[in-house]
């Protein structure tokens, strides 16, 4: 067959912008030969709201409702990153009380847990099993209940502020959270049975979507993708922020770098997250202020400077590059989401040779979150 006819045999297929197998509102334009993708291009921009532009014309405190919309399944990392970067530039970070730091750590870990419960269900959901996602999203809802109790909102919390958090922990919060954790732990063996013991899942996930180790430095990969290669890199231990340095925490690793390794990685991190939440609840001081004294937020100006702050989201390293110019507004903020690399360059590289049936499982295992690509 000549080259020309090979090209003519290709079928162009659009996945998205609205497709049940695509994680969110983005599109993948793929070319197929038979059941195999020969190439593909990621298209984003369906969700662009211009966050970075909007934050340039808002006061510092007004930016909080904006940033948590950047990643929908896990908004809290964004809140913390904005707070931490502005605190660092203004020098407020030395005044954040001890208890606020513990609450923030708890808050971040709860959001990681809820996000990972959802994505673990997505792994098999993308392969057509509706049972496990149904269970797991319900388990996630218990965590959302606790978020609601703590912050008043289910999804977008706007809880972290400069200098601390907005509210203290409610009475009896730790016991109710512990009850939820036990509920989750009691259901997890059943989930394991359906997902990881399933011959069909193993058959489809092992050896599929392998990310070579050379790409880590070339593409700047982070998070579960790197840890699933057996490389222990975790922002929480590498650059300990808030109280992660005082917790007993080891980066989880699995080997194989395929979809199964990444799914098992998530399962291990769920267990780790539950353990960390228990540690935090045990070590957290019960007394003390939860917020520093703040200046008048309407007139607050901070000195010019530039910084980059990073945190571990459930998808990988998330970072905020913030520039201030001495005025009462942010000069420029650049949100560096892990999906920016994972969802565009890495996905486009992995697509040739992928079976059409594996594309959505691949996207889930890379945990592509379109809103943080385009912001």
């Amino acid at each position, binding site marked *: 067959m000549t080259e020309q006819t090979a090209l003519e045999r290709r079928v162009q297929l659009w996945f998205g912008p609205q497709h049940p197998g695509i994680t*969110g509102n983005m599109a993948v334009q793929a070319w197929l030969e038979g059941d195999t993708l020969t190439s593909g291009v990621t298209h984003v*921009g*369906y969700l662009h709201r*211009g966050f970075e532009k*909007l934050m340039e014309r808002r006061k510092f405190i007004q930016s909080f409702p904006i940033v948590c*919309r950047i990643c*929908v399944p896990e908004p809290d990392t964004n809140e913390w990153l904005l707070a931490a970067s502005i605190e660092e530039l203004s020098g407020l970070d030395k005044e954040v009380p001890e208890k606020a730091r513990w609450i923030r750590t708890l808050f971040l870990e709860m959001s990681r847990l809820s996000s990972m419960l959802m994505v673990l269900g997505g792994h098999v959901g993308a392969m057509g099993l509706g049972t496990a996602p149904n*269970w797991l999203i*319900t388990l996630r809802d218990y965590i959302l209940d606790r978020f609601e109790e703590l912050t008043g909102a289910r*999804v977008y919390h706007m809880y972290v502020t400069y200098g601390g958090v907005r509210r203290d922990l409610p009475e009896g919060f730790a016991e109710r959270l512990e009850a939820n954790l036990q509920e989750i732990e009691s259901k997890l063996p059943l989930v394991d049975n359906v997902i990881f013991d399933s011959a069909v899942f193993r058959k489809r996930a092992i050896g599929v979507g392998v990310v070579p180790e050379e790409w880590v430095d070339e593409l700047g990969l982070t998070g579960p993708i790197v840890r699933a290669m057996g490389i222990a890199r975790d922002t929480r231990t590498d650059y300990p922020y808030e109280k992660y340095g005082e917790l007993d925490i080891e980066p989880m690793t699995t080997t194989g770098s395929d979809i199964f390794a990444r799914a098992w990685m998530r399962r291990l991190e769920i267990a780790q997250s539950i353990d960390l939440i228990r540690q935090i609840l045990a070590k957290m001081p019960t007394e003390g202020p939860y917020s520093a004294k703040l200046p008048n937020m309407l007139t607050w100006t901070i000195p010019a400077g530039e910084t980059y702050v990073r945190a571990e989201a459930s998808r990988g390293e998330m970072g905020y590059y913030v520039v201030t110019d001495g005025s009462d507004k942010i000069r420029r903020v650049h949100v560096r989401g892990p999906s920016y690399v994972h969802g565009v360059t890495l996905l486009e590289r992995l697509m040739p040779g992928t079976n059409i049936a594996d594309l959505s499982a691949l996207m889930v295992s890379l945990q592509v979150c379109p809103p943080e690509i385009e912001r």
Partner: protein
Amino acid sequence: MASSKFPLAPPEHSRPHAPMGEGCFLGETERQQPLALKEALAKIKNWFRANSLWVMAYGTGCGSIELRPLTTARFDMERFGMAMRPTPRQSNVLIISGYLSVKSLKRVIRAYEQMPSPKWVVGLGSCTINGGMYWDSYNTINRLDLYVPVDLYIAGCMPRPEALLEGFGVLMEKIKAGEANGWNHYLEQMDWYKENQKKLITDWDLPDYNW
């Protein structure tokens, strides 16, 4: 604020309607039936339509996050006969779950026009009503009802699953009473909607109506 380019209030219905929201008559001749029979038939039809809503969710970022609890075990919308359909050809309800960027709007119009009528549009969240917190963004539209007819808004950011269930209950009641007539309005005032759409989407490369 209000630029004169846009007629801000959509025009009213202009043609006579069959009873119970059975639709306007565009080029069809009205079947000669007694009014009572027509109404009874329309009631039965509307009951069927209301109790089997097939949903196409255009999940724009925020909204899809609360649709997932809605479809799964805790809130389970399937018990009201609602099901998710992946293709516009088989859906009756289009959920616009939040702000729409201009790029998305083009796809939404296309999906909306491909749905078989009667069809309904539900706008979730404050951003479909008036731009919400993105009111000053250059890339998100502020009013959804300038471009597609919206039968029901569910306010909130994001509306909770309970609010969504309540909203769909209201939509069902409206359908049963024959009051959810957005699709008729779209057909009647096609010129107005198309004018608005083309004003916003500068690289218009769609057919005028996507069958």
